[in-house]
């Protein structure tokens, strides 16, 4: 069965996601980069699940999708709050506290 191809695709997505989280300044784009990592996770789980002939991988993938939706809901609410109070969602400007 094809396994390596799926893992490579997931690894590439994971790296793009990590790069996005570290390099992006826009909060919404950071959230989208986190979603890329989570999709890499889902590909891994489904591929490994099919390879090992167990449904545990698919089930885990479903849980990841559901929890990620809840997480992004909270995240977007927070970004909205930030926008209301600051009129900007540039994360480099969020630096009131240091040290």
């Amino acid at each position, binding site marked *: 069965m094809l396994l390596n191809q799926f*893992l490579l695709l*997931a690894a590439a997505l*994971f790296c793009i*996601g*990590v790069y996005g*989280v570290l390099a992006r300044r826009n*909060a919404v784009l*950071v*959230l989208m980069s*986190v979603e890329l*990592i*989570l999709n*890499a*996770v889902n590909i*891994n*789980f489904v*591929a*490994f*699940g*099919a*390879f*090992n*002939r*167990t*449904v*545990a*991988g*698919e*089930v*885990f993938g479903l*849980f*990841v999708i559901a*929890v990620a939706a*809840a*997480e992004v809901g*909270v*995240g977007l609410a*927070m*970004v909205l*709050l*930030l926008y209301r*109070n*600051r009129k900007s969602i540039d*994360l480099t400007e*969020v*630096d*009131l*506290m*240091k*040290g």
Partner: protein
Amino acid sequence: MLAEVAFTAPHVDFAALAPEIVLTAGAVLVILLDALALDKIKPFISIITGATLLGAMIPILWLANNGVDRSLFGGAFVVDNFALLLKAMFLLSGYVVVLLAMNYIAEGDYWESEFYAMMLSSLLGMVVMCSARDLLTIFVALELLSIPAYMLATWRKRDLKSNEAGIKYYLMGVFASAIMLYGMSLVFGASGSTLLTDVAKGLSGDNVRPTAVVGILFVVIGFAFKVSAFPFHAWAPDTYEGAPTPVTAFLAVASKAAGFVAIVQLIYVGFGTREDVYQPLLWVLAAGSMTAGNLMALRQKNIVRLMAYSGIAQAGYMLAPLVVAGNDKVGDKPLQAIVGYLVIYAAMNLGAFGVIMAVARKTRSAEISSFRGLFHYAPALTVAMTVFLMSLAGIPPLAGWYAKFQVLSALISAENASGVAMGILVGVNSVIALYYYGTIARSMWADDAPDGDLTPVRVPPALVSAIVITAAVTVVFGVLPQAIGHFTNGGLLAIGG
């Protein structure tokens, strides 16, 4: 392939789930009462929350007295003495946080009933985490405890600092859990199962697959964010400073302890056979956390930021025993040391936050200089704060001393270079920590109050009881260490798979 799996309803042991059921019912009740009759019920919401937390203690005491280890859902959810002791710790720290929050939230024009509903949900996640012996259960418990905590940190909606605290905590937390999940997917691939006992079987053997190595490292790093270990600590001081103080106490104690519970279960049940993979990483995390945390705490002017850095250092002490976890000579000693440390740390840290909140009621400030001359107008608070600070520093006969002693004894009994080196680091760091804890204590006792303002601090009864409870625990566990030793001794505390 999916059609091959026939569904049979699992047998559910509801007695084992009773603490979780009580907490869920309490959270739902708070939300419903809020929706139906907020005006009438508002003053009682915090009392209902406290009663729920104490109510969830009843099944725990019954289960502990019953003494049988219970395993549910094919071993994904295990109720043993380890789980019960930590569940009790989470519920009692939650109760103390409710006592701390009661007046703060009621007087501060916050959303009140949602606050308690969120806190109950977060505590539910922590209580589930104590029993989670499956990667999926650990993940769900982690998210259940984290997502409400992100919201709690942002609770002051119009305050820019609170916004910043929340968004930093959220982004770091989500990023960390994504990395942890990627690690879990690789561990699942290498071992073929999500159940920790099967993961252990799949990972054992002379050769370890590269995917398993990356997976284990990513999972441990994901939880290192949660316990704010160096170099993944950057969010902690900002989040602690910006969040409402009761939430800070909650994050610093309960949320951090939940991360430790997960790490301990993963290492003792799941990754135990692969100490060659996780030990170097844990060594760096532990040594870096205690050294960096203490050095950065030295130059803090804000007491909450100081507590954040001291918490990073304390996380280092708690990670230290895991460095020798796979060693045959040590057995379960690291496990006992960590659990004992978690319980004691919860008491002394919550107490310190209680005093900080009590003093801030008068001074309206979190600067360390606002503690000057505290003895001249609030002698009882000064004595309590001194007890907590000296316990955090590890001075006998207070509980923090016994916690550190357990850590050192576990490290030394490994009789190898990495254990002894880590023991020396713990010792050196305790001396550095004594300096900044001692500076605060000296300025409380010896200095004059700023502007000669000697009006006494009015402390509400809930806050007084929180400080009294935590001070009593801190002193009793220090004077009678066998009291905590009784709960954490070997036979009682072996983790069931």
